[in-house]
């Protein structure tokens, strides 16, 4: 039975139990609703909640553990010599799951593995059947228990409202859970990485070449995991992006806020916001196929040697993407400056631009710094533009015409395609992710603090 069908079945059971609970309440009331503590729908909702929630909880718990339990069952039966070699083990697990899915006819593997594949298929069938049984029995059990509890003076409304409150708390806790999930998954794999590579070497090493040998017979270098070239590349592209986004974003915010007629604003403002809504993969395509060749050809005319995957192309396009971000944030900040300051300046005979430059801008500076920091954190974490338009070569250069690589590009290249578990190459992506997460988090917290403080000053 497929998952969607199972969910539909549970939903149908919920509807049914709603009907039962309501019917029972109506029957108990003897025709007069005032004999009941709550409205009949509350009784219905009560039974429906007791039918659906245990089933959903069981499903969730089941899926959290099913994978690892099945894998443990399969692995425990594999011969010892496969278990000892992690590369062989992951290969074996792959072929086992292929055989179990019925796609393993062409594989030439040991008979133990074929057996394990059959056993896996068996276990999977049993597991999905067991899931159906467990979920449906949970639903039916909840239904019958709650159905029996219904009496005329049961506080059904209070009960269902209490359940609703717990469900809402659980939903809010998901925000915490996902942060915890991010931190733990990154930390776990990164620590794993740091047992193989010295963290100091990772953070301060000057050479990045993660291509280690996958099989013993391959010729490859040791692999170097010094992330400084990546940080330099990221900073270079971020710097270029900020050089584009900050002046353009600030000036357009000023113009929109102070000079533009309402008609102009009504057209230009949404048009600017479109820039923020374009998916990053589109910008990446634009950077790689339009901007980069344009820069290369024009650079050649000027006698400059522009690489076809230059930092400049990626940075320029990223800057364009961030313009609306900077402009809307700084617009926000500048409109917070109290009117009295502005009026005072006008009263002294200052022109608009003098007021903006000498009064509003200095007053809003902390907020604008916060906005720019938020934009920087977004530029650092941006992935698709750099994946498509910046290169893979870990050059350590400040020359924007050359190819550089960034943290996000490396995460993508390390994790897309064939992965082997437990190799320093794959794990290094998580270490990079951890650095990325910490840096952007730090920037955000700091920027939000700055903006907050600034707001309090004028509130």
């Amino acid at each position: 039975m497929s998952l969607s069908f199972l969910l539909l079945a549970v939903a149908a059971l919920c509807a049914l139990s709603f009907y039962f609970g309501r019917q029972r309440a109506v029957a108990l009331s003897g025709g007069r609703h005032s004999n009941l503590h709550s409205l009949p729908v509350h009784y219905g909702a009560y039974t429906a909640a007791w039918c659906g929630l245990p089933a959903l909880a069981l499903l969730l718990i089941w899926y959290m553990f099913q994978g690892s339990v099945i894998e443990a069952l399969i692995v425990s039966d594999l011969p010892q010599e496969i278990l000892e070699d992690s590369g062989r083990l992951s290969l074996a697990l792959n072929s086992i799951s292929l055989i179990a899915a019925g796609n393993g006819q062409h594989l030439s593997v040991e008979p133990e593995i074929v057996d394990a594949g059959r056993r896996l298929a068996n276990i999977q069938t049993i597991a999905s059947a067991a899931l159906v049984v467990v979920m449906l029995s949970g639903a039916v059990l909840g239904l019958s228990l709650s159905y029996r509890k219904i009496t005329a003076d049961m506080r059904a409304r209070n009960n269902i409202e209490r359940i609703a409150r717990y469900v809402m708390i659980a939903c809010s806790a998901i925000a915490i859970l996902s942060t915890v999930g991010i931190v733990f998954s990154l930390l776990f794999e990164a620590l794993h990485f740091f047992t193989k590579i010295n963290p100091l070497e990772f953070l301060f090493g000057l050479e990045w070449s993660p291509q280690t040998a996958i099989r013993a017979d391959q010729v490859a270098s040791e692999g170097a995991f010094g992330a400084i070239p990546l940080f330099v590349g990221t900073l270079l592209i971020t710097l270029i992006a900020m050089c584009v986004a900050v002046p353009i974003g600030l000036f357009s915010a000023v113009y929109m806020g102070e000079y533009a007629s309402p008609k102009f604003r009504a057209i230009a403002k949404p048009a600017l916001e479109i820039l923020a809504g374009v998916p990053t993969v589109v910008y990446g395509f634009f950077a790689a196929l339009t901007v980069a060749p344009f820069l290369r050809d024009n650079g050649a005319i000027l006698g400059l040697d522009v690489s076809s995957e230059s930092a400049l192309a990626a940075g320029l396009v990223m800057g364009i993407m961030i313009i609306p971000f900077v402009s809307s944030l700084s617009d926000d900040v500048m409109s917070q400056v109290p009117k009295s300051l502005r009026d005072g300046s006008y009263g002294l005979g200052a022109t608009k631009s003098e007021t903006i430059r000498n009064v509003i801008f200095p007053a809003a500076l902390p907020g604008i710094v916060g906005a720019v920091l938020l934009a920087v954190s977004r530029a650092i974490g941006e992935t698709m533009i750099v994946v498509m338009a910046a290169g893979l070569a870990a050059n350590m250069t400040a020359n924007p015409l050359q190819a550089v690589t960034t943290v996000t590009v490396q995460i993508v290249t390390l994790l897309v395609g064939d992965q082997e578990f437990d190799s320093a190459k794959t794990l290094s992506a998580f270490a990079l992710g951890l650095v990325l997460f910490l840096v952007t988090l730090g920037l955000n917290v700091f920027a939000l603090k700055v903006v907050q403080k600034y707001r309090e000053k004028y509130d």
Partner: protein
Amino acid sequence: MTDMASLMEDRAAAKVISDNLRKPVDWDSPKIARNIKKRYAAERRFKMYGLVAIGIALLALCMLATSIGSKGYSAFYQTYVQLEVHFDPAVIDPDGTGDPAVIGRANFDGLIKQSLRDRFPDVTSRSDKRDLYGIVSGGASYDLRERVLENPSLIGQTRTIWLISGDDFDMLNKGYIDPTVAEGDRRLNDQEVSWYNELVEAGAVEKQFHTRFFTSGDSREPELAGIWGAAVGSFYTLLVTLALSFPIGVLAAVYLEEFAPKNRFTQIVEVNINNLAAVPSIVFGLLGLEVYLNVMHLPRSAPVVGGLTLALMTLPTIIIASRAAIKAVPPSIRQAALGLGASPVQTVTHHVLPLAMPGILTGTIIGMAQALGETAPLLMIGMVAFIVDIPGGALDPATVLPVQIYLWADSPERAFVEKTSAAIMVLLAFLVLMNGLAVYLRKKFERKW
């Protein structure tokens, strides 16, 4: 720099003013007039900078749009070549069984090759023949088979039919391959160009609307590749995202806005939501890879995993928008409901939520539009696989529109450039549609209390 300079200027000006304060200012003096003129010029310059900044931003938008549009519009048309095909019974159904299974196995590719050889009888060498077969796409034989299966009476007849052409011929016909450049610098040799010219003169080359682009899945052959598979994958992914993030987001927003006591838990949740909104999307991909794939062992490349990952990503957007919408409902509504004896939960479900719903829906649609355009986290969880089949459910391997764009943008064939641009146009059309719906909802149900 300019700040310093202007500060110095201001100081100097202040000194002049304080010196001048002793005597009455002559407002009509040429010095004052010059000064005012200078200040007004600065004002105009400043205003101009703002206009230029907006102009640059809008110019970038226009360049983006025209670059995509001019590269992509031609992908909606496909070159077809007219050939005389003899439906040879000896090839299709030698025993005359009429059994669809037999017909389905027949060598239709051979039929097309035969008719190409008939069309250009002077081609004899092996490599020339291979070039000749490139005129018609490898997928044309499937079209031919379907045609025969639909209408078995064709067997034994000779018909003139339009066949989908190979990608290089398509590029030549659309003008992307310039036949005037040196032979070594283009994908087609002189002989192939002369065949093309001969076919054009005979009126046997035509551009037709390319429905296959909208109905088929991915393919290694540009002329056969379509976006339907990716669109369906996007649909399932968004469905999972919506099914998870909408109820969870709305319930969390209701709790935080209406019920949450001001305590440590609430504070942590609020800080967390604000921070999650700013976490780079690729980090969510790493989370998905680790938790959903490595720990929970959910299927790789499946829309379920993509949807789960994107749900976590859109959750902050939905929660923040929903909270704003709930906050906008005036307290008098709540007081009236509570005064009439409704419980707090009833007040929320019967009054506050329905009134806040347009705002919540607008926020949700915007969050979904973001999720639709998201690429990076889906690369992490293996939705970049090359998948030809149209996914039949949320557990089948699939890809999504933005990832399809990324994959095609990486392909070396020239013909994929126009496919990529066309796929971008389709993606943008969806986004415009969704955002338009959000704007419409906001306009229609916007309420001033």
